[in-house]
């Protein structure tokens, strides 16, 4: 399809134009170009072209059919640009299985500061079990109070604390009494166990009261411990959160919390999971998280896809604003697009062979959906079909270095996942070998500190037949940190 001109550009409209905008644009164009009023040469042809475009775009079903055929470049709008980087230019029709990498960038260039900031609807769910005593608790109290003081008139801030049961400390309300809320937070006394479901459910109920696609609806769960027996209930709740448009972010403090569980919980909802080694760093994590929430351009970005026969998605990973593995599902929650920045996701598709006729192969058809809270109609969707030419296997030459770097990161992360799995199921030799490769890899990239942590874990594995909780987390989150990156990098 012609990249320069399409029905939208013909009417001077952005791809996400509303039906009202389309009608207005057509009326204006018609006034200028109608054969009855304009006798200039070529005006009639222009008018017919505009009419053709309007006939399609003004009809919802014709429009969506037309949209699905547009290239991603054509569907870009000035606020949000979608771009793709592939590892291959074309695929072979028959032959061996082939891998296709796709680095997808969703970028907002303008930022949200210049626009009307959208309200945040946020619930802090704080673990107050006895182990939180001390610096962690003090930092959290200070953070919660700061959050309440900074709340703007349209924001809804609630605070839930939990140990063996939950207590709504500051209920979600538009008429928050800051001094009363502060007093209640100051009075918090740590004690008891860690029942995450209790806290999460209470937080969910508070967030739900002011639910709107025009808000950033977030739950931030902060814990230092493990929950026992209620993981399934938490996952169920997370699923419900997704369907209602609530994002769960998690912050784990120290070494005892269950990183696999909290990571899953966050990823399911498009949120992120952070690891805080020392309680004194908590303040920084919390404030950066909160600043991020109010500056997101788009929330709840999801990829709905339908792979063609013989094609499967083997791995998906968010590369920016943070690095996190994503859930491999027909609808993948990708996360949020930070204002003035971008959301970058890396996909690895495995193609077993092409059955279809023609010159172009669609690996997967689908769309991206998201909420843009600053818009009057916040629901937004962009078609995204993953296609490659058929005509012999050709890798992109040269390969874009950003793509190579992203795949490098994904590879080390997956090796780390495999080492953990092998260690947990007693395949110690395999785990050790993989860890050695990881250490070598990190060394060659100049990340000596993390390489040493990995070497230490190899010794621990030998000695104790298992990895240490601390080492597992440090390696996992260490391979996700964005520092030490190649300059062109996400």
């Amino acid at each position, binding site marked *: 399809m012609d990249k320069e001109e399409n029905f939208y550009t013909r009417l001077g409209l952005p791809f996400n134009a509303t039906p009202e905008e389309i009608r207005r644009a057509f009326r204006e164009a018609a006034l200028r170009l109608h054969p009855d009023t304009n006798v200039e040469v070529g005006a009639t042809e222009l008018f017919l072209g505009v009419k053709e475009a309007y006939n399609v775009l003004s009809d919802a079903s014709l429009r969506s059919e037309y949209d699905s055929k547009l290239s991603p470049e054509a569907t870009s709008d000035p606020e949000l640009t979608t771009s793709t980087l592939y*590892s*291959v230019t074309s695929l072979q029709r028959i*032959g*061996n*299985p*082939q*891998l*296709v*990498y796709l680095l997808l960038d969703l970028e907002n260039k303008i930022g949200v500061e210049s626009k009307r900031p959208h309200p945040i609807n946020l619930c802090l769910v704080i673990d107050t079990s006895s182990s939180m005593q001390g610096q962690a608790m003090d930092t959290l109290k200070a953070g919660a109070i700061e959050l309440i003081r900074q709340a703007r008139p349209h924001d809804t801030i609630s605070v839930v604390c939990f140990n063996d049961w939950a207590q709504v400390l500051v209920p979600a309300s538009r008429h928050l009494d800051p001094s009363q809320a502060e007093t209640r937070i100051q009075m918090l006394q740590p004690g008891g166990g860690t029942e995450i479901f209790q806290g999460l459910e209470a937080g969910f109920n508070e967030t739900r009261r002011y639910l709107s696609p025009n808000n950033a609806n977030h739950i931030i769960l902060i814990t230092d411990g493990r929950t026992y027996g209620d993981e399934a209930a938490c996952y169920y709740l997370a699923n419900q959160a997704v369907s209602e448009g609530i994002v769960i972010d998690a912050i784990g403090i120290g070494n005892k919390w269950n990183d696999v569980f909290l990571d899953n919980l966050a990823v399911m909802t498009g949120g992120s999971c952070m690891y805080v080694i020392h309680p004194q760093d908590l303040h920084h994590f919390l404030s950066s998280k909160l600043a991020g929430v109010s500056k997101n351009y788009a929330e709840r970005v999801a990829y709905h896809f339908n792979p063609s026969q013989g094609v499967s998605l083997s791995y998906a990973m968010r590369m920016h604003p943070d690095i996190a593995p994503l859930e491999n599902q027909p609808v993948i929650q990708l996360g949020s697009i930070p204002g003035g920045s971008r959301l970058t996701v890396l996909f690895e598709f*495995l193609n077993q062979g092409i059955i279809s006729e023609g010159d172009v192969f669609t690996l997967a058809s689908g769309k991206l959906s998201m909420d843009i809270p600053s818009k009057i109609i916040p629901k937004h969707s962009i078609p995204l079909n993953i296609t490659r030419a058929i005509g012999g*296997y050709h*890798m992109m030459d*040269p*390969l*874009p*270095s950003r*793509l*190579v770097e992203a*795949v*490098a990161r994904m*590879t*080390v992360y*997956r*090796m780390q996942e495999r080492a953990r799995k092998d260690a947990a199921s007693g395949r110690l030799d395999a785990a050790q070998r*993989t860890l050695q*490769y*990881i250490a*070598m*890899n990190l060394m*060659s990239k100049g990340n000596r500190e993390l390489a040493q942590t990995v070497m230490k874990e190899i010794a621990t594995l030998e000695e104790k037949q298992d990895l240490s909780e601390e080492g597992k987390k440090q390696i996992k989150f260490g391979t996700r940190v964005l520092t030490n990156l190649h300059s062109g990098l996400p």
Partner: protein
Amino acid sequence: MESCPTCRQKYTLGALFCLECGTQLVKAGYDDTLPAITGTQSSYAEPPLAFEKSPPESISLLVLESKQEIILTGSSTYSLGRSSEGQAEGLDIDLAPFSAYEKGVSRKHAQITIQEDGVHITDANSSNGTQINGIKIVPERSYRLNSGDVLYFGQLKVQILF
């Protein structure tokens, strides 16, 4: 299916990295234009072939920036590095005259050997590493070279011909 040069694990067509050991399997963003010289560039997806006839008597290293040529002859093992304050102990080839210090070449950087099955290179645990056609190699491990391969010792770019 091709195998990874480091760990011998088979990998799927289109893989950029070996999932087993993390070795990069492709040239990365490699967009340098090379002078027209015979010989093919090898990529590690296709290991070079052994000598078809007899091993070469001399090897030439072409320093690409200055277009100077270094001839390696009369031995089957050459250790490469840079002399420091005039000390070149244990070095067969001193790269100091080619801005080796500024380019991050280690005192003992790498070793090139001529063997029955081809010309090999081993990185001597150098600080900034050695690359073959844009791929960083694992230190202390021998890699077979093809005539025409472009090597980096740190940032010093050299083409090998034999």
